[in-house]
């Protein structure tokens, strides 16, 4: 999996670790560690549910600011059809208001929506042996398929989303009319959600998006509302602008009127989308030609960056379809353009699967078994106190060494068998002791099984056991010899004492990890014991 861009930022200065984002995340991509929420990059698919639920506003959506427009000679605003549902005004008035926000021109997406609908019908009827196809206009759904359903990648509709088609056409037209080079013309999407940023920064299926900038509806809202107040709300849309068919893309199920009822299916909300994708992956729903899937429960009108209540917005959208004309399309012309490849995506969408428990399959099987054993002794109530959303996610974290069993408040040390106790390693001890590893890096991943504290070498020789962590203030080379003979897992030097040079050299040679901690011995032992290391083994 390549390092992904995510259009959201977790602000740890605002986060209080309340875990609402962790519980809301449909792909279990949030953990709370050391009191703050963190994002697991390879699991996040940019749906933005976490942004919605955070009471502290500690998760910020990332979109472009209007300053980005300065980088272009001319700018074309391409509003999401969801924009029109945000105001009690006609689309023509919203378009006029948009022009006053500093864009050189405005390109409505409805014509592309109407033609794409036809193109989808051509495509699915030509490929009847590969049903059902899955819509690809919601970037979060595309990401979900790439990450969790790589086997369904060829079912993603290989056609351009209407916003991309609109951008490509508008730029070409603007360039032809003004003589300005296309790369000096910026196509700006007015977006209801941050996930569209992903399709601009890193569009799967296209080498480069035809859009250059995404500005949030919420950011533009005050300016647009002001302009509407000033210039009125009743301006009818200019010819060739928004249509009833275009507006139908704005709410979940609006597409339902497409194709015949038996052939298309509309699903919204990631939990529901996941269920339907499971069905498709298990070989069902083959009698449907097309599954339109969107991440937000209410569709784009309910995007994270929309301002209006999604149900009010949807009611407006439905009312607007009554005001607006239906498209007057020439199917023959669309079919001709379809044949010429006008609607097809420029390149294929590739899978980007979430990582398995281990890249090596033998080890992944071992970890899967460990996971199941651990899961069997976890309480199964998904309380979230450990910082993982479910007991199952926590078990994943433990076998992947990003959590230790004792992070579970219910799991008593005694309940763990030797295998699970071995989950703690020197590497995990370091942050606990605020320590640094001075030597023996190669063995820092090996298990620590218990602890022993003493500053008398012969006492250690007599009583320390294999796999113990040895806490001491001695810093000379002989401690390494003792540790090596007793097969000790590592030495912890307390009170900030650094090992002598000879000790360091010897430790590197013998592969004995040495940790230096600023903490005094009493504190060190207390913390290790609280984290689950015992001084006694039965």
């Amino acid at each position, binding site marked *: 999996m390549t390092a992904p861009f995510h259009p959201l930022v977790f602000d740890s200065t605002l986060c209080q670790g309340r875990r609402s984002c962790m519980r809301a995340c449909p792909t279990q991509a949030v953990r709370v560690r050391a009191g703050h929420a963190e994002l697991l990059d390879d699991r996040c698919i940019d749906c933005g549910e976490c942004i919605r639920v955070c009471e502290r506003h500690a998760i910020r959506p990332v979109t472009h600011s209007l300053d980005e427009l300065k980088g272009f000679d001319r700018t074309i605003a391409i509003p999401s059809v969801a924009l029109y549902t945000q105001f009690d005004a006609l689309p023509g008035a919203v378009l006029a208001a948009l022009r006053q926000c500093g864009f050189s021109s405005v390109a409505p997406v409805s014509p592309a929506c109407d033609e794409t609908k036809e193109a989808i019908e051509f495509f699915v009827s030509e490929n009847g042996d590969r049903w059902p196809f899955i819509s690809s206009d919601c970037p979060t759904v595309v990401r979900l398929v790439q990450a969790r359903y*790589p086997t369904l990648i060829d079912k993603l509709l290989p056609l351009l989303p209407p916003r991309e088609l609109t951008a490509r056409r508008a730029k070409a037209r603007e360039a032809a009319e003004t003589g300005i080079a296309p790369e000096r013309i910026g196509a700006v999407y007015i977006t209801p959600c941050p996930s569209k940023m992903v399709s601009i920064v890193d569009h799967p299926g296209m080498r480069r998006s035809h859009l250059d900038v995404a500005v949030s509806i919420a950011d533009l809202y005050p300016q647009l509302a002001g302009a509407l107040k000033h210039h009125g709300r009743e301006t009818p849309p200019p010819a060739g602008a928004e249509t009833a068919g275009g507006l139908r893309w704005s709410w979940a199920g609006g597409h339902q009127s497409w194709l015949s009822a038996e052939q298309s299916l509309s699903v919204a909300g990631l939990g529901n989308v996941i269920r339907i994708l*499971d*069905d498709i*992956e*298990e*070989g069902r729903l083959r009698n449907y030609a097309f599954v339109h899937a969107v991440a937000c429960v209410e569709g784009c009108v309910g995007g994270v960056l929309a301002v209006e209540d999604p149900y009010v917005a949807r009611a407006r959208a439905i009312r607007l379809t009554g005001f607006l004309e239906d498209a007057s399309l020439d199917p023959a012309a669309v079919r001709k353009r379809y044949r010429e490849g006008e609607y097809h995506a420029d390149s294929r969408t590739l899978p980007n699967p979430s990582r398995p428990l281990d890249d090596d*399959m033998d080890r*992944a*099987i*071992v970890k899967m078994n460990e996971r199941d054993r651990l899961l069997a002794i976890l309480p199964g109530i998904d309380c979230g106190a450990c910082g993982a959303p479910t007991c199952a996610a926590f078990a994943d974290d433990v076998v992947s060494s990003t959590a230790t069993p004792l992070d579970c408040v219910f799991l008593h040390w005694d309940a763990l068998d030797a295998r699970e106790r071995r989950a703690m390693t020197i590497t995990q001890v370091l942050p606990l002791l605020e320590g640094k590893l001075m030597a023996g890096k190669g063995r820092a991943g090996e298990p620590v099984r218990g602890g022993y504290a003493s500053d008398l070498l012969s006492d250690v020789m007599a009583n320390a056991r294999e796999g113990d962590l040895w806490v001491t203030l001695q810093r000379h080379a002989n401690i390494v010899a003792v540790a090596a003979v007793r097969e000790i897992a590592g030495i912890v030097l307390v009170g900030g004492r650094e090992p002598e040079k000879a000790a360091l050299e010897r430790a590197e040679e013998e592969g004995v990890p040495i940790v230096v901690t600023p903490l005094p011995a009493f504190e060190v032992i207390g913390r290790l014991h609280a984290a689950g290391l015992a001084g006694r083994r039965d």
Partner: protein
Amino acid sequence: MAEAFERTWRVMGLDFTSAGRASTGIKDALKRMGVAPSVVRRVATASYEAEMNVVMHARRGDITLRVSPEVVVVEASDEGPGIPDVELAMQVGYSTATPEMREMGFGAGMGMHNMKQNADHLHIDTVVGKGTRVRITVGQVRSPR
């Protein structure tokens, strides 16, 4: 020999609300272990058909998944009516689904066929009046890297 993974799901007859859970669980487990996507899909399809046969025809059954780095085996064993004529049951279009099941979209007579299509090896043990054990084997498990 390398370690193998094994997990069993209990499936109850006529429990259509939970039907499919075992297959979804199997798929999830296979993905976690890094099994090749094409294998995941074939196993999921075959195990879903096996699971639905248990739900539709048997009192109850167990679906067991076994994974090694060489092979995936799904075994569905049930306490059910058994299959009187396996050869007939394998024929496309042959179905014993009730009208109620047909109303839910089952009974195309493709179930056994789908199992056979997606498995490298399909083994059926059945005793009329006692039950059926279906073993689906798919090889070439490792993801090409």
